[in-house]
């Protein structure tokens, strides 16, 4: 019995060593990831070229991608495609960086447009311009110009477009009817939006909000800044200086966070962390949301109420954020010809039909966009001419970390908007100066 009681005494020190293991386990994982020259553990017939394709997505998307691979391999019997995939985008980004560090990145890399400078500054991608010049099958004129522009740096095209998306205003028709408010249309301004949101917000006896008037992701101040004729940087594609302290920016961001803090017509960021806006909308707990084309897919299953889509409310200007994905070729690829074939196929009409058919995005090919074969609400197409990509810079990761630090403080009312914007501005400028 004595021995039993004494035993724990020695344990803490052992536990300390054990803890040591735990704190560095993450790094251990990385070390094990970084095995160079690891051969793809998959069954490829002799003589076939193996092309790795990096992408992210949940199981419902992977089914589509597997179909694409089948289609591609049927056309190219000498090429085998192997997916390198992770479910979440953040984890995918980490995986990509790890593979690049190990010198074994996938040959074809799927990526969001704002991330290209971060990878290009490390020389991770090949210029696709020569491939396009030598290949009569690719017709760049058929792409919507903006969708190529966001993937171009210094006159070189580093990826072919996958798909893109713009934001619009989803609204619950029944909630509008119940409140007796006219539906949103292109005349809506910030003031109309706020007024409608106030009338659509419903509280119960305990003071809990049963239904909010409006919501977005809670941390998306860009469209407001742009709509107020402000900018995040002097040049949002190649920033040299941050412009977050400009009065137009401060005013826009203040208006945006006041929706939840002052007017209480929108859930705050912490509530959205618990229940994302799409869930709130589906549950009838928010009457309007700003979201992209993708939300059409989960909303298609709504049976409790009717809904529709309108353009975002305009400020001093009409702007809607756009986001695009593209397929790049890694500079380290040892089979560029086969990788190019895959990129060309994935960006082409056959593959786009499969991806967008169920995925909820807009095609970058004009012929497809004008064909009317996709079930996209008109408001999205109307918004395209006003779309604007989010800023991008080589320091993207660090900049997003600053947003992660400062935005929640503003969103929860713990730091005044002008003060938070000033500290963000200082940090960005320090990064841009290379400090």
């Amino acid at each position, binding site marked *: 019995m004595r021995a039993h009681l004494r035993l724990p005494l020695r344990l803490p020190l052992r536990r*300390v060593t054990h803890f040591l293991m735990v704190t560095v386990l993450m790094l251990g994982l990385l070390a094990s990831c970084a095995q160079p020259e690891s051969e793809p553990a998959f069954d490829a017939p002799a003589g076939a070229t193996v092309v790795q394709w990096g992408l992210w997505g949940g199981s419902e998307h992977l089914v589509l991608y597997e179909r694409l691979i089948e289609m591609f391999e049927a056309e190219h019997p000498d090429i085998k495609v192997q997916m390198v995939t992770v479910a979440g985008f953040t984890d995918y980004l980490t995986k990509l960086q790890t593979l690049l560090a190990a010198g074994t990145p996938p040959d074809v890399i799927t990526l969001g447009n704002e991330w290209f400078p971060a990878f290009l500054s490390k020389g991770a991608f090949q210029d696709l311009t020569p491939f396009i010049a030598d290949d009569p099958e690719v017709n760049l004129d058929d792409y919507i110009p903006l969708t190529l522009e966001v993937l171009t740096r210094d006159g070189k095209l580093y990826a072919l477009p996958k798909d893109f998306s713009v934001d619009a205003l989803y609204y619950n028709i029944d909630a509008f009817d119940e409140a007796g408010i006219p539906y949103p249309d292109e005349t809506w301004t910030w003031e109309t939006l706020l007024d409608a949101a106030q009338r659509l917000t419903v509280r119960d006896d305990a003071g809990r909000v049963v239904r909010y008037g409006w919501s977005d992701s809670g941390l998306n101040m860009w469209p407001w800044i742009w709509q107020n004729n402000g900018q995040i940087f002097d040049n949002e594609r190649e920033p040299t200086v941050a412009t977050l302290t400009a009065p137009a920016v401060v005013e826009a961001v203040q208006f945006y966070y006041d929706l939840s803090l002052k007017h209480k017509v929108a859930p705050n960021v912490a509530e959205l962390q618990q229940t994302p806006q799409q869930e709130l909308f589906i549950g009838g707990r928010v009457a309007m949301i700003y979201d992209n084309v993708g939300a059409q897919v989960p909303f298609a299953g709504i049976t409790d109420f009717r809904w529709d889509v309108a353009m975002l409310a305009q400020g001093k200007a009409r702007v809607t954020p756009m986001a695009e994905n593209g397929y790049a070729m890694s500079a380290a690829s040892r089979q560029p010809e086969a990788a190019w074939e895959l990129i060309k196929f994935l960006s082409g009409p056959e593959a786009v039909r499969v991806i967008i058919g169920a995925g909820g995005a807009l095609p970058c090919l004009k012929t497809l966009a004008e064909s009317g074969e996709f079930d996209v609400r008109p408001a999205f197409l109307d918004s395209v001419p006003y779309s604007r990509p989010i800023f991008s810079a080589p320091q993207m990761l660090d900049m997003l970390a600053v947003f992660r630090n400062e935005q929640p403080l503003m969103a929860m009312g713990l730091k005044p908007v002008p003060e938070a914007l000033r500290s963000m501005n200082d940090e960005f400028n320090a990064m841009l100066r290379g400090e």
Partner: protein
Amino acid sequence: MSGVRGRAAWTRGARRRREALWALLFLAPSLAGFLVFTLGPVGASLGLSATRWDLIGRPEFVGLDNYRAALADPILGRVMRNTVTYSAGTVPLLVIVSLALAMALNQPIRGRTLFRVILFMPVVSSTVAVAMVWRWIYAPFGALNALLVSVGLPVVGWLTTTTWAMPAVILMSVWQSVGYSMVIFLAGLQGIPQHLYDAAAVDGASPWQRFWRITLPLLSPTTFFIVVMAIISTFQVFGQVYMLTGGGPAFATSTIVYYIYERAFLALHMGYASALAWLLFAAIFGLTVIQLRLQRRWVAYE
């Protein structure tokens, strides 16, 4: 005579060497695992903590810069305060509740095995699953608020206000780990000789006196063990925070390990994150050493 003894000594030496070899052979699998998956990464992280490394490219040697940057990092101060708050809230609550439960379930009551199993179940449940359930309990229209409304109290934004998020995380953590401490306390309680209680009863000691004079002092080694372990594990809290609040709202529940994760895997500052991990190691090591010193004052061994 001396020759015989010499040979005996030689034989003994050879056998010892042979046995040592056998021991090493049997230890090899776990020793190899320890070297590759523990000692290697530990060494690597110490090395990395002196570099700047974003996973792409080669680590760049920066000496003690990361440690210097950590000392000037305002966010580190914030997450450290949060960690201490979490620990200070969790550890005493854990000790008191688990001791009370252990004493209750040490009584010959009906169905006590069942209760022990029920209380231990959260310990063996996955944190992710547990947190999902608690998110529902803490939701604005969740079970806990329903309870408050039914007794006429105002509703609380459990995970959505900076005031209540930390207490909510603490509550869930205590619920989740109370079973483990309870089992250890139970073992401790059963190690207290019955004759001491019998003697105290003969002397006319009240149950309260018996608790303060017999149970608590004789449990002190167990209590010490639980406190030390709990402080170490609360300083390493990650899963509960990650799942329940994501460090929010506005960093009210961001703890040191959560920050290490953010630096390493979201911002990709591997070197800095390694330095933070070593600073945390030093802090926990220091705390544990202090506790081992202090135990002489209050831990009684028979």
